[in-house]
């Protein structure tokens, strides 16, 4: 299946969870937030949330700004 990850297309194994995606990206334990199709996926639901073809995923973090 293919998703949009931070605006870029990415091919993933079907049935992957948000937690598995975060882990594959090396982001487990980092201070991040995840949005799926413009809805927040709370950390407590990363394990249970399965990605679907066409999902638009945003993974964000804090950066310097004023």
């Amino acid at each position, binding site marked *: 299946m293919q998703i949009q990850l*931070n605006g870029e297309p990415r091919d993933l194994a079907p049935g992957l969870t948000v937690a598995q995606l975060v882990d594959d990206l090396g982001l487990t334990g980092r201070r991040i937030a*995840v949005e799926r199709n413009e809805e927040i996926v709370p950390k407590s639901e990363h394990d249970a949330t399965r990605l679907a073809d066409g999902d638009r995923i*945003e993974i*964000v*973090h*804090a*950066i*310097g700004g*004023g």
Partner: protein
Amino acid sequence: MTDFFQDQPLRIAGHAFTSRLLVGTGKYKDFDETADAIAASGAEVVTFAVRRTNLGQEDGPNLLDVVPPERFTLLPNTAGCYTAKDAVRTCKLARELLDDHKLVKLEVLGDDSTLYPNVVETLKAAEELLRDGFDVMVYTSDDPIVAQELERLGCCAIMPLGSLIGSGHGIQNPHNIRLIIEQANVPVLVDAGIGTASDAAMAMELGCDGVLMNSAIAHARQPVLMASAMKKAVEAGREAFLAGRMPRRQSADPSSPFAGRING
């Protein structure tokens, strides 16, 4: 503050702060400089932006290690948002990022070249965020009517610009800032436009409750030294405001008495 005088804390949405200088975290050369400048500024409230994670470059230090939420009151901002919808999404991401954190700095911009606030979208976003339980400190124009409306909606601090973001042009319309302060029942902070220490002192002398700045410190030749200057300027301006300035006079008025002069 001097030892013979104890100021009231700056109170925003249930928080109480000793420092009236709030700082940003952008434009520094590295995280060490960011940390040193924030320490020198004495700021307790620190704002930051929310952006996409750079996938594939996850090993570097994280801003939140430099400004740990345990030590600072973090103020995620919506810089770079041009619509109410994007600003609301960004605040929700920030709330998730900081584990149910509610205090945000809302800014919705109008265009790239002026970064002037789009007050129509700002009002829309404020309404939605407040309905959703956020505490909203709002960046806005120096229009007193818009400021009043943002307060009426329930924003916890009104933050008019002194001049354009990053311009360093200081406070271009002190009369409007004064009007906003006089009518407000929530803290008013000048956000944007501060260029040097005297601008920050002027904001406080006008009666602002605080000042928020980033570029004035980060783009100084010596950011850490400027951060220290800003700390003093905000304190000096605050004390001068509370002390009450002397009246202006048209003619001179000698400080030394006339009586007893040797040529009298």
